[in-house]
């Protein structure tokens, strides 16, 4: 089946099995390896992307779900103002250890920054509740996102 969507601002059209995982299309067909696979069951958040602006785990989203939609992966998000701020803050807080979960956290945190952005721990915990990190224990991740919220507010004035 022919599936068309917009990936990071570029129109894509490809012939594929409609049931294929969006994750595989992004990594294998389109060569964007920033999106990671870990659990493969939608439970860890490593493969998080934005589908029509909403965070989804691309390992349990089918190609057909992307038809006519806008997809943003970590590669594009890392280039945005909020993405850059988050990377800076994760770096400063030492919030990344092995790094495998980081792309997923970056996408989920970016969504929080653009959709809410209040530097409130409870809200941030909820926004990142779909992402699992097995190295850091979350404290530094939350700290990084709180700092990014503050910094974005400063920039906005």
């Amino acid at each position, binding site marked *: *089946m022919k599936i068309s969507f917009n990936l990071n601002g570029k129109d894509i059209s490809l012939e594929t*099995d*409609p*049931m294929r*995982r969006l994750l595989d299309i992004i990594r294998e067909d389109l060569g964007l390896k920033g999106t990671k696979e870990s659990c*493969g*069951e*939608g*439970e860890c*958040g490593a493969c*998080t992307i934005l*589908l029509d602006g*909403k*965070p*989804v*785990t691309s*390992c*349990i*989203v*089918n190609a*057909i*779900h992307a*038809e006519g939609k806008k997809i943003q992966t970590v590669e594009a998000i890392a280039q945005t103002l909020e993405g850059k701020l988050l990377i800076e803050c994760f770096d400063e807080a030492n919030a990344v250890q092995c790094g495998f979960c980081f792309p997923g956290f970056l996408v*989920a945190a970016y*969504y929080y920054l653009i959709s809410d952005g209040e530097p409130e721990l409870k809200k941030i*915990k*909820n*926004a990142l*509740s*779909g*992402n*699992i990190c097995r190295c850091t224990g979350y404290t530094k991740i939350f700290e990084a996102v709180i700092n990014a919220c503050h910094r974005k507010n400063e920039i906005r004035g």
Partner: protein
Amino acid sequence: MKFYKPTSLPSLFQFIETVENKKYFLAGGTDINVQIKNGMIKDGTVIFINHLQELKGIRKVNNDIIIGALTSYQDILKSDLIKSHLPWFGKSLRFFASPQLQSMATIGGNIANGSPTADVLPLLLVLDARLKIMAKSKIREVPCNEFFTGYKKNILKRNELIGAVMIPMNAEQDYQIYYNKVASRRALTIAKLALAGMMKIKGGKIEQIKLGAGALNEYPRRLKSVEEYLTGKQIDRIEVLGIEDILKSEITPISDLRSEKEYRFQVTLNLIIDFINAQKNN
């Protein structure tokens, strides 16, 4: 596996009349894709429905809030209609899955999938929700508590589909409410036990009580005998042993990889008592 994408709701119903073999509706796909990955689904016809706008959205019609079956949990969480008419229902949805799954998962899929642990059902059961069930030339309404007949079994005929969930607009009004989901962690988790409760108290007596249990029996259902036992009782003179006996005769707890049935029985009892105690202190 065969695949079909209908262009409209009428063409969907035309098509399903012709499917003889096992078929699966693909809505948000958050559970079916896990079943496919684990080899639980190998063949059959997959019918994509998630693009059918007719089955999406939240409206107020007469005295009901009507939620289209393909409405995502994120859309329900954000809905002003839900916030103003069914605030407890809306807030309870925050305990479901994760933001990522809430973006994709649909309320109709959660029900039709029929998992004993389906998060939404204990709530719908006590809110007296009804399901709008659609076929090619027929629409019928079925109370949520008559939908399931066994483990992953329901009353849907092979040419039928859940079209919408209907909740009475004033369902929460004048009730004391309770929702507790017990699991191994707080977020992104599957329930070991979930209890939704609604109670009306008058003059220190329980005038009406509704208890909906999830992850307890083969399918989510009301605890009718316990409800009957508690109705009319003085709230500060309820004996735990009495509830325990009734509960024992009423439920058929499941054992699975998450919990044993003995644990589920005890937690159910504890949650019922927790609900009652919370009202005593009010």
